[in-house]
């Protein structure tokens, strides 16, 4: 999945229901995390739904590697978008990347609101912080 493809798909979906259907389909394409990796230490705190997130650096390519899963379908779909946006970026590129603009353009900015029920913002913040450290 690449981000251009996702952007196109979502912009073709009219109405919220269609959008969420598309998002849930994206989630389905995201490989499930093996249960052994669904450990509390990998949980992103501040999410009402459970989100497990792993982020590492491919030393050779100097690119971010992200794997993640969630117990909810919609958040899993949003994770697919986030992973597509950040994957294969260098830490430098990642820390300069503006997820708010992306979500704004996808019409999904409400998911980045500071509401505590809404963990997507916490996920993005955690990725940004880790990318910063990997620079």
């Amino acid at each position, binding site marked *: 999945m690449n981000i251009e493809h996702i952007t196109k798909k979502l912009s073709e979906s009219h*109405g*919220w*229901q269609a959008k*969420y*259907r598309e998002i*849930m389909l994206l989630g389905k394409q995201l490989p499930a995390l093996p249960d052994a990796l669904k450990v509390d230490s990998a949980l992103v705190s501040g999410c*009402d*739904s*459970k989100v497990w997130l792993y982020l590492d650096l491919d030393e050779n390519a100097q690119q971010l590697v992200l794997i993640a899963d969630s*117990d*909810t*379908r*919609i*958040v899993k779909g949003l994770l697919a978008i986030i992973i597509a946006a950040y994957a294969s970026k260098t830490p430098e590129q990642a820390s300069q990347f503006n997820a708010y603009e992306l979500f704004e353009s996808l019409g999904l900015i409400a998911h980045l609101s500071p509401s505590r*029920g809404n963990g997507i913002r916490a996920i993005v913040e955690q990725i940004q912080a880790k990318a910063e450290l990997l620079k």
Partner: protein
Amino acid sequence: MTDIQSLRNDFPILNKQLDGQPLCYLDSAATAQKPNKVIDVIKTFYQDENSNVHRGLHTLSENATVRYESARETIASFLNVETREIVWTSGATESLNLLAYGLSACFNSDSVIAISPFEHHANIVPWQEACQRTGATLLVLPMLDGVLDEQGAIALLKQHKPDVLAMGHVSNALGNIHPIESLISVCKAIGTITVIDGAQSLLHLRPDLKALDCDFYVFSAHKALGPTGVGGLYGKYQQLNALPVYKTGGEMIREVSFERSSYREAPGKFEPGTPNISGVIGFAAAIDYINEIDPSALQRYEQTLYHALLEKLKQIEGITVYGDTQNNVGVVSFNYKSEHHYDLATLLNTYGVAVRSGHHCTQPLMKMLKVNGTVRASLAFYNNQDDIEHFINALNATIELLD
């Protein structure tokens, strides 16, 4: 019935369109909507009457003080207690903190505090803190299939004779109405102080506290048509006045020197600083509004809506409803198959339906129910059959999208 239906027009937000859809507000257990009367009183206060209360000699201040103190009379007579038995706070949470702090002053490691398994975090954590400070232990009453086990609870109370029983009149997560009458009368017999969390009962059940005979009762204005940032507590006067103060500052004192200070009598001593004046006045307007509605007609109407909702919901295959559906103020707390409540609530919202999802600040209860959360639709008298239809249609469409 038409009478009550027409009250809906007093709530301007209910005519709102969200993304081109009419709003279907089923989140009154989180916060109730406000009638025009309340909104107008607040606006008029700031436009024409704003002043600090107490100690001011000028007309604005006198008038604001009269309004503020007569609001205390309004809520006191609503609850059938004495005016001086009402303390204003910033909400039920602060009221419970004040009580847990005050009552725990004479706890020790032999003390026992009983709570129900349905409690909101606001009626758990302050008592846990008190236990930690004093060595007291927390005793949790038993439940069966999402309903308080009344006989088991009574037996446990009689066995442990706790210092305090702190429990909700109505469960916010499930809507269960608890048999507090019988529990309070057991507590009287064994010398247990009763603290009733009325956050969810004030609006729907309009309790007569003299008849209930509890020692303390707490409430939040915003759950009962009033503004945010204000609530209060009732306490039998002797017991109330005997509590140590929780917050200190201006107005609550009799005399201050750098060496020491002495405090006023209750309720004054629990109200330091500038209170939420517009909040208190707005809350009195909300109580005035509720007083104009016939309570039994209101309850009948809410029950009719509730059972209509419950019936329709149960017809959907795969729905599990939690809690007590016999004694309920009008809350359905449910899940659909193994779908996540987050997905359900998010999709319902795309149809203009405002429900809550998650643990509803009752994590221990959710653990006992073996779920990580539920979707909660909560009713108030300003809802109608259209809301129920709107909700059921949206839920069916949501399920279609998920299946």
